[in-house]
């Protein structure tokens, strides 16, 4: 089955005074129909740049220097990167929609929610207000909100969780096949996070769309993702099925990240931070960018950037020449890394 989205060797640079910032480098991954992929990384990893480039919402200072974004819909496969403006507008929202972070001023503050729906619908060809109203009510019901109360309200009158649900509802307006979510649970309270995660799981089952979400929060990947990609300094360092990545990581950064996140259940385990800070994305070192922070780095690591190679479990790639050493440390048991690492 052709994947619904296939990203190939995507590289994106930002133009700055000090030189081009290589925010995303040679990123490749596939999303199958109905699959949920989590792109996990911290600040400076390039995950947000990657996500907004998928529907070409990047700022003008960002330039896709190479690569393809192949979307396969009902009408065949197209490269989003080369799509002309009018077809791009048709693609956006009806094939692929984006859910932004509710906490970050994603609403127009001077119009109410009904008008946001109307604006969005009109921008994508739905002009009849009766149809839009019916659809808005249907969608708000779907996300468990009271349409009568919410449609009349202004964004500042709604709580963070409610706003996030409205953004999810808005994204579903034209029944897209692919939804991109940017940090959907960040800055939300625990109980609200839980309700949004449960909602996304239900919608996924009911409507069958594919999802990409980008986050620094490993737990949302653990909850919802089928496959997971970890990014560091603009490149993919590991991609695997979610259980493989959590229990059998093969890249030192993935291991480091998993060890750095404490849990509430289970034993505390060998929790530890990753020393150092993310690299300067303008002047990249010749070899692997993780070397300054990597406990397993050897001389060969600094010679050239490693390729993404398959490792011992199926459909699992890691960008590390010492992945076998990582495999020895972490093993294959279906147990959290903090409980079994022997470093």
């Amino acid at each position, binding site marked *: 089955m052709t994947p619904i989205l296939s990203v190939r060797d995507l590289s994106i640079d930002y133009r700055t005074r000090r030189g081009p910032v290589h925010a995303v480098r040679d990123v490749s991954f596939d999303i199958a129909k109905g699959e949920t992929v989590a792109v996990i990384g911290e600040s400076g990893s390039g995950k947000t740049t990657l996500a907004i480039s998928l529907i070409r919402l990047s700022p003008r200072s960002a330039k896709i220097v190479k690569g393809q974004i192949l979307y396969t819909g009902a009408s065949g496969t197209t490269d989003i990167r080369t799509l002309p403006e009018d077809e791009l507008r048709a693609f956006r929202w009806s094939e692929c929609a984006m859910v932004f972070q509710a906490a970050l001023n994603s609403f127009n503050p001077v119009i109410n929610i009904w008008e946001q729906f109307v604006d969005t619908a009109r921008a994508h060809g739905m002009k009849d207000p009766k149809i839009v109203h019916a659809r808005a009510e249907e969608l708000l019901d779907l996300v468990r909100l009271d349409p009568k109360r919410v449609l009349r309200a202004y964004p500042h009158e709604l709580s963070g969780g409610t706003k996030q649900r409205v953004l999810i509802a808005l994204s579903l307006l034209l029944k897209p096949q692919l939804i991109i979510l940017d940090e959907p649970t960040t800055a939300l309270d625990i109980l609200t996070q839980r309700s949004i995660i449960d909602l996304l799981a239900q919608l996924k089952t009911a409507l069958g769309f594919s999802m990409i979400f980008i986050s620094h929060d490993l737990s949302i990947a653990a909850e919802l993702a089928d496959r997971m990609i970890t990014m560091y300094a603009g490149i993919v360092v590991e991609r695997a099925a979610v259980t493989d990545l959590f229990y059998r990581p093969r890249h030192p950064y993935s291991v480091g990240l998993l060890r750095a996140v*404490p849990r509430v259940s289970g034993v505390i385990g060998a929790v530890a931070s990753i020393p150092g800070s993310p690299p300067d994305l303008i002047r990249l070192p010749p070899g692997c960018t993780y070397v300054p922070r990597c406990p397993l780095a050897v001389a060969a690591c600094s010679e050239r950037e490693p390729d993404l190679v398959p490792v011992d479990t199926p459909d699992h790639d890691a960008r590390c020449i010492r992945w076998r050493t990582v495999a020895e440390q972490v093993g294959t048991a279906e147990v959290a890394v903090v409980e079994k690492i022997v470093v």
Partner: protein
Amino acid sequence: MTIVRPQAIERPLIELDQVSRTFKVPDGTITAVDSLSLAIGSSEAICIVGESGCGKTTTGRMLAGILRPTSGRLRYEGQDVWAKKGHELSAFRRAVQLVHQDPYASLNPTRTVFQTLAAPIYRHKKAKGGRDATNRVRHLLEVVGLAPPDDFLVKYPHQLSGGQRQRVAIARALTVDPRVIVADEAVSMVDVSIRISLLNLLLGLRSEMGVSIVLITHDLAVARYFAREGRIGVMYLGRMVELAHSEALVSDPAHPYSAALIAAIPEADPRITRSKDRVELRTAEVPSLLALPAGCAFHPRCPLAEPGLCDVDVPALLPLPGTAGREVACHVAIRERQPAAELLA
């Protein structure tokens, strides 16, 4: 592992005694904190957790002497803080320091790290002359893990990462030799991969220098890690609903709200998180602070709520019978002499 038992705090270093704090807003009055009592000893690591609007930040700021309680007493070393004046009040202010949440706002952008750290050193005569001051600044930078210190002295805040800025903020708090540090969501805006190291730094200050640390956070996982040798207090809509040793709270929560939180937290472990038992709450609506429910503020959502009991009297924070060092504010749990987690199972 040393377990700090609340009853053992006979001489608390700092304590809030039936403290309340209200704010006037255009629509009425908000009770951000209601009749809260909390005693903290020296060399203690304690965590206050809760969701937004629960009053934890207000509590932290009252502990640090930045906000004055509208009723109740704040006591430091047994004495009423707000009855103090002049240099006694300043001495208290210096003894309890606050570390802010936002590393991008906590340092003056026009001053170098050296200037920021040297100002309190000079002001409070903690050094004799320029050379001694620089050495003291260097020492503090090393204590907070910014080495080599000379690399950081002439840097401006915008040249540092979020984690480094928080370390400078902690160093700044240490310049006046505090006895208590209140860290208000101090790791929430910092990269995930370095949170643990900051928490370890704070815990190190406690074990090496005897400073009590009060960590305020909404992240229960962070709370559990930080307070693993201490207590966690859970707040809901302005009240402390549970206060217990962290492992006891996490494994067997006594209050239904704590149980709901722990059951709801998404965990960084697929097997655990996809098989967690939920605690179903009766409604998802959170009451507004302007119109708190009568009786127990949690009763409209609580699966154990009993009409006639929970919607009438506000439950007091009482020791849970049959346990050591656990306090809970729940009529049903106290009456049944069992933690809510077991009643819900």
